[in-house]
């Protein structure tokens, strides 16, 4: 090996480069000493005088040599870089093909700190783009939510205003009283919407930041269900939907009683809205080994199981359904999952739908 070539090869080896020179007919031979990484991954090519059998060693390099060949044929000062690639499990390399005084040269470099820095910048940039996209989507959804909330509240407010305007013109005390009752109902509906919205966001915040200082949750299912049934009783009567409950007993679950009552009320309201007038809603409570299962069967139109998961999303991009229902079920999911419970939907075919909740049993020592 000529002294000059050997000296250059030694410099490249020190820098972590493998220097190959093309020899005719078509082969690449290592010039100078092999850097440590080359000895590790391609020991055959690292031996003095050995040829680099690219097709056997690296599909990436084999592909790059086609671009390299064009560069060598062009000659002059042209050069072509392969771009980074990973050889083996984690060896990051980059190849450069160039011509030096008519000699075709292939340099393979183990990428070092500069590349790590570049990678870190790219990682950060891409994470930022993904976060921005998610934020953008979330903002769009929030805008839709605000619009839906405004629509819901405007409807109830419109009823209040209409009732008050009619009262202004009404002289019959009985009719005036009836109008006042309607205005009161519309006001309560508005209040319910506000509570529902606050529930959703309060529970989302709790799920994000935890519940500092909160005592171990404990509720008796029977008591909570009785309160929930009482809360929805008048709505059921008004729509003439029969509500039957079975399987009661003393069952304690590790869930906050207030949250559980809201979940039950929401599921009972959900069932009521789905069930046609004159229909029936059945509630069943069953004790399991370590959990308690509650089933709410309604008489509504069948919801196919492929969309079950979406029922509990705050927003449903593909299916149109009332936003109030979406918020109700979304709140239920957040509240149940926060206490390590499960919630789901099962189609009952033409008979309706079953929404079920599985709650963890309460064990004082847990």
């Amino acid at each position, binding site marked *: 090996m000529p002294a000059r070539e050997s000296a250059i090869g030694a410099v490249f080896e020190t820098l972590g480069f493998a220097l190959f020179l093309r020899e005719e007919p078509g082969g690449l031979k290592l010039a100078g000493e092999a850097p440590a990484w080359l000895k590790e991954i391609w020991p055959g090519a690292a031996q003095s005088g050995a040829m680099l059998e690219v097709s056997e060693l690296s599909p990436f390099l084999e592909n790059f040599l086609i671009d390299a060949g064009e560069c060598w044929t062009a000659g002059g000062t042209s050069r072509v870089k392969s771009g980074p*690639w990973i050889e083996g499990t984690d060896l990051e390399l980059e190849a450069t093909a160039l011509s030096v005084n008519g000699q075709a040269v292939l340099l393979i470099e183990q990428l070092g700190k500069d590349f790590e820095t570049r990678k870190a910048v790219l990682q950060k940039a891409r994470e930022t*783009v*993904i976060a921005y996209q998610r934020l953008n*989507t979330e903002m769009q959804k929030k805008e839709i939510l605000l619009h839906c909330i405004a629509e819901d509240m405007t409807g109830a407010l419109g009823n209040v205003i209409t009732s008050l305007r009619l009262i202004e013109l009404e002289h019959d005390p009985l009719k005036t009283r009836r109008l006042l009752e309607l205005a009161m109902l519309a006001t309560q509906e508005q209040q319910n919407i506000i509570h529902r919205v606050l529930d959703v966001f309060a529970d989302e915040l709790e799920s994000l930041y935890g519940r500092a200082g909160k005592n171990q949750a404990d509720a008796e299912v029977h008591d909570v269900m009785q309160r929930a049934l009482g809360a929805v009783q008048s709505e059921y009567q008004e729509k003439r939907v029969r509500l039957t409950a079975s399987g009661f007993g003393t069952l304690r679950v590790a869930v906050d009683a207030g949250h559980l009552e809201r979940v039950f009320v929401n599921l009972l309201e959900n069932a009521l809205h789905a069930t046609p007038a004159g229909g029936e809603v059945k509630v069943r409570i069953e004790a399991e080994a370590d959990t308690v299962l509650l089933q709410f069967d309604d008489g509504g139109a069948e919801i196919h199981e492929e969309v079950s998961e979406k029922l509990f999303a705050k927003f449903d991009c593909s299916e149109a359904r009332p936003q109030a229902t979406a918020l109700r079920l979304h709140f239920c999911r957040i509240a149940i999952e926060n206490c390590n419970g499960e919630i789901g939907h099962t189609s009952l075919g033409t008979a309706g739908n079953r929404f079920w909740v599985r709650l963890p049993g309460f064990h004082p020592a847990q």
Partner: protein
Amino acid sequence: MIQKKICMIGTSGVGKTSLVARFVSSIFSDKYLTTVGVKIDKKVLTVDGTNVTLVLWDLAGDDDFQRLQLSYLRGTAGYILVADGTRQITLDQLLDIQARVMEAVGPVPFVLALNKADLQTQWEIGKERIEQLTAQGWHILLTSAKTGAGVEEAFSDLSRMLLAPKP
């Protein structure tokens, strides 16, 4: 043995590397680590009684920071387009990328993997969009590198397309 080159194509953060890791090594990590450049893996798959070695080229995501190098596609027998089902925009961007790929490699077989199927509650790609692409002849699979759902199918379906006799 038959050997086929398959490229993983998509914008960044959609789960190309995770799909390959799940398929080749049965592993998954929640941590996002961006790919810079190319990582090549191999796996032998038996499709309808035929052994085929898949040479999987996991290419860096095509985005504003790094463009897909079309020279990497040279000799590819087929490719897997990957989009993140929880980010609609990744499918929009993928359609542009696919047009460039098609121009570079011609009409070679491909499948579309709508990844992150385990995150159904955050899903953004509607059924209508999927049906629309299916009607255009696209073979689409819902995949989850996290649970493994649909992953093996994506690679074996594509392999089956590659091994099918050409008309």
